[in-house]
C-alpha cells in the first residue's frame, strides 16, 4: 500500500512528466513547422530579390537600347531634312541671284534629299528585325507600354520580397522562442516538480505558445 501523501506526490510527478512530455513533443512539431516556414520564406525572398534585380537590369538595358535605336532614327531624319533645307536654300539663292550654277546644285541636292529620305527610312525599318537574336530584338523594340509593365512587375517583386522577409523574420523569432522553450523544459526536468520546476515548465509552455502563434502567423 502507498500512503495518501505519497500517492499525491506520485500523481503530481506523473502530471509534471506528462506536461513536460507533451511540451517536448509540441516543440519538436513546431520546430519542423517553423523550419519549413523559414526555408519557404527565405527562398521566396531570395527569388523575389533576384527577380527584381534582373528586371531592373533588363529595364535599364531596354531603356538604353530602345532609346539609342529611336534617337538614331530621329537623327537620320534630321540629316535628311538638313539636306532638304540646304537644297531649298541653294535653289532660293540661285533664283534670287540669278545664278544658274547654284540653282543646278540646289536642284541636284533636292533630288538627293528625296533619295536619302527613302534610304534612311528603309534603314530604320530594318532595326530590330531578323536575323538579330530574339533577346536583342526585344531590347530594340521595347515600347513605353512594355517598359511600364516591366516596371510594375519589378515593383511587385520588391513587394513580394519585403513580405517574404517579414515572414522569415517571424519564423526566426518563433524558432528563437522555441529554443528558449526547449531550454526552460530542460531546466524544469532538472528542477523536477518543485515550485521552481513548475514555474520553469509554465514559462516553457508560454514560450512554446508564442512560438505556435508565430508559426500560425507565418503560415497564414
Amino acid at each position: 500500500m502507498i500512503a495518501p501523501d505519497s500517492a499525491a506526490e506520485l500523481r503530481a510527478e506523473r502530471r509534471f512528466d506528462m506536461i513536460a512530455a507533451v511540451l517536448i513533443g509540441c516543440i519538436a512539431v513546431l520546430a519542423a513547422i517553423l523550419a519549413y516556414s523559414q526555408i519557404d520564406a527565405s527562398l521566396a525572398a531570395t527569388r523575389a530579390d533576384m527577380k527584381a534585380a534582373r528586371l531592373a537590369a533588363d529595364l535599364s538595358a531596354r531603356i538604353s537600347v530602345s532609346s539609342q535605336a529611336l534617337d538614331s532614327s530621329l537623327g537620320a531624319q534630321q540629316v535628311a531634312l538638313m539636306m532638304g533645307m540646304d537644297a531649298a536654300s541653294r535653289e532660293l539663292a540661285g533664283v534670287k541671284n540669278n545664278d544658274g550654277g547654284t540653282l543646278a546644285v540646289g536642284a541636284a541636292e533636292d533630288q538627293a534629299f528625296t533619295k536619302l529620305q527613302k534610304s534612311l527610312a528603309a534603314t530604320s525599318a530594318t532595326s530590330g528585325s531578323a536575323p538579330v537574336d530574339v533577346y536583342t530584338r526585344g531590347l530594340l523594340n521595347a515600347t513605353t507600354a512594355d517598359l511600364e509593365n516591366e516596371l510594375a512587375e519589378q515593383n511587385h517583386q520588391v513587394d513580394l520580397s519585403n513580405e517574404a522577409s517579414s515572414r522569415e523574420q517571424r519564423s526566426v523569432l518563433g524558432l528563437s522562442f522555441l529554443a528558449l522553450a526547449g531550454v526552460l523544459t530542460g531546466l524544469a526536468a532538472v528542477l523536477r516538480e518543485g515550485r521552481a520546476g513548475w514555474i520553469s515548465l509554465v514559462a516553457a509552455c508560454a514560450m512554446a505558445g508564442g512560438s505556435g502563434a508565430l508559426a500560425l502567423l507565418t503560415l497564414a
Partner: protein
Amino acid sequence: MRPSGELFEPSASESSAVTASEMAVASTERGHSGVALLLATAAVVAAIIGARASFVSNAASDSWQSALRTEVKRSAGAMEDVRYLYQSELPVAIRILEAQLLQGELQTAAAIETGPAKQALQSEADVQAGIIAALSSSSNLAGKPAYALPSGGFDLAKRLADLRAQYPALVALDPNGLETAGDGLAREAEMLSLAMLPTSIGAFLGVLAQPFKRRRGLLLAAGSVAVAAGAVMALGVEVLA
C-alpha cells in the same frame, strides 16, 4: 503505526504480486529502450533531411544569383554591340550615303549642263567624292555590299547580327534557364523540409509514449510509422527531383 509515505515490503503471500511487478518493470525497461530508439531515429532522420534541405536551398540561391549575373552580362554584351552600331558605325555610314547620293545627283546634273553651272556641279561632286574617299575605309557598314539594301540604305539587322555573332557565347547566355533550375531546386528544398513534419510527429508520439505507459506500444508503433513516412517522403523527393 506506519510512517506516512513509506513503501512496505510485501508479505510471503504477496510473492505472486511481486513477480508480476518485476515483469512489469522489465516491460517498462523495454518500453524505455523503444522510446529512446524512436527519438534517436527521429532526430537522426530530421537532421539528415534538414541538412539536405539546407544544401538544396543553398543550391537554389546559387542558381538564382547566377541567373542575375548572367542577365547583367547578357544585357551588357547586347548594349555594347547596339551602342557600337548605332553610335559609332551608323553616323559615319549615313554621312557616306549622303555624300554618295549627292555626288550621283550632281554628276547626273553636270552631264546635261554646260558652262559655269556644269563647273559648279562638278566642283560640288568632287567635294562629295573627297568625303566618300576619306570615310569609306573606316566604315564596315557602308563599305560592305552585304549590308546594302536593294532600295538604298543599310541592313542594320544583318550588321547587328554579325556583330553579335562575333561573341556567340554572349548570345547563348540563358539566365531564364538558370532561374528555372533554381525554381526546381527551391521546390525540392521545400518538399524536403516538409518531410520533417511527419518525422517530428514521430518524435512527438515517441515522447508521449514515455508518460502514457498503457498506450506505449501503440504510440511507439505510430511514431515509427510517422518517422518512416518522413524518411520515405524525403527519399521520394530526392528520387523524383
